């Protein structure tokens, strides 16, 4: 139990640091509204390293704490809808066992962006924002690929270290 709490705590802390880094240095590739989603690296890695329940806790804690620290009430709505939808879709895609970490990360990023559009449509009460759907979906493929690639190189090391230490 203590080990589980410590691991969840470490993951939340790491996700918060990534959120902070992105808040001060936005990696938006020159397109406004698009970001790398470094914090998603922690969630994707967590999906393969911890159980789903812990990943949900990490995701929610990160969203609420980073919302309080770096955002405002409105950005919290976007974060929650994006975080939850992408997490659910990533778990479904992971369970199919058809895709690798990269594929799961890509759908996570794409559905995160789709949910941002849906949230924006609700907040400003208009459907014209769907115009941004194609560009945000393509951006999701790009950022999701990068995050998935990093995660798939990180995970074997993490798992190896973990078994060496505790078994």
């Amino acid at each position, binding site marked *: 139990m203590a080990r589980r709490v410590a691991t969840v705590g470490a993951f939340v802390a790491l996700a918060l640091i990534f959120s902070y880094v992105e808040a001060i240095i936005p990696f938006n590739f020159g397109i406004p509204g698009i970001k790398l989603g470094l914090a998603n690296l922690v969630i994707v890695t967590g999906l393969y390293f911890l159980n789903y329940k812990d990943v949900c806790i990490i995701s929610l804690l990160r969203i609420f704490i980073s919302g309080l620290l770096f955002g405002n009430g*409105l950005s919290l709505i976007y974060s929650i809808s994006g975080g939850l939808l992408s997490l659910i879709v990533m778990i479904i895609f992971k369970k199919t066992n058809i895709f*690798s970490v990269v594929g799961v990360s890509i759908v996570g990023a794409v559905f995160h962006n789709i949910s941002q559009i849906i949230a924006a449509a609700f907040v400003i*009460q208009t459907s014209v*924002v769907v115009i941004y759907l194609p560009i945000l979906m393509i951006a999701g493929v790009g950022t999701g690929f990068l995050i998935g690639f990093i995660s798939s190189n990180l*995970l074997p090391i993490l798992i190896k270290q973990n078994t060496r230490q505790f078994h």
Partner: protein
Amino acid sequence: MKEKNIFRIRFTDIFLAVAIIILSILIFFYFIKRNGYAIGNEVIISVAGKEYGKYSLKEDTVINVETDDGYNHIEIKNGIVHMQEADCTDLYCVNQKGISKKGETIVCLPHKIVIEISEGNVDTEETEIDAVAK
């Protein structure tokens, strides 16, 4: 064996990425087709889903929109609509290029402002008046 494969990019991943990109391009062309290349005439400004006002694209003017969240100065000049100034948090709307064609939009998310260009009926009114005058 199966464990190892999870960390290597599979064919299905590439297939998924390509499928999403193709789908996005199809959606993009659908939007273009729906809007057509028609020249817009009317500028519709709405705040939080409610219409704020309609303006002609042909008349140069500056519209000052005051919302509960802050102000936006929208400039219409030479048939191009541009967000001149705003006190929103991200300033994406101000940095965005001007719009002039039907279906194009400028969105200021923090202030819930949407500027949209529509075909409008400004021109048809003019032709009607001309027809009557003749």
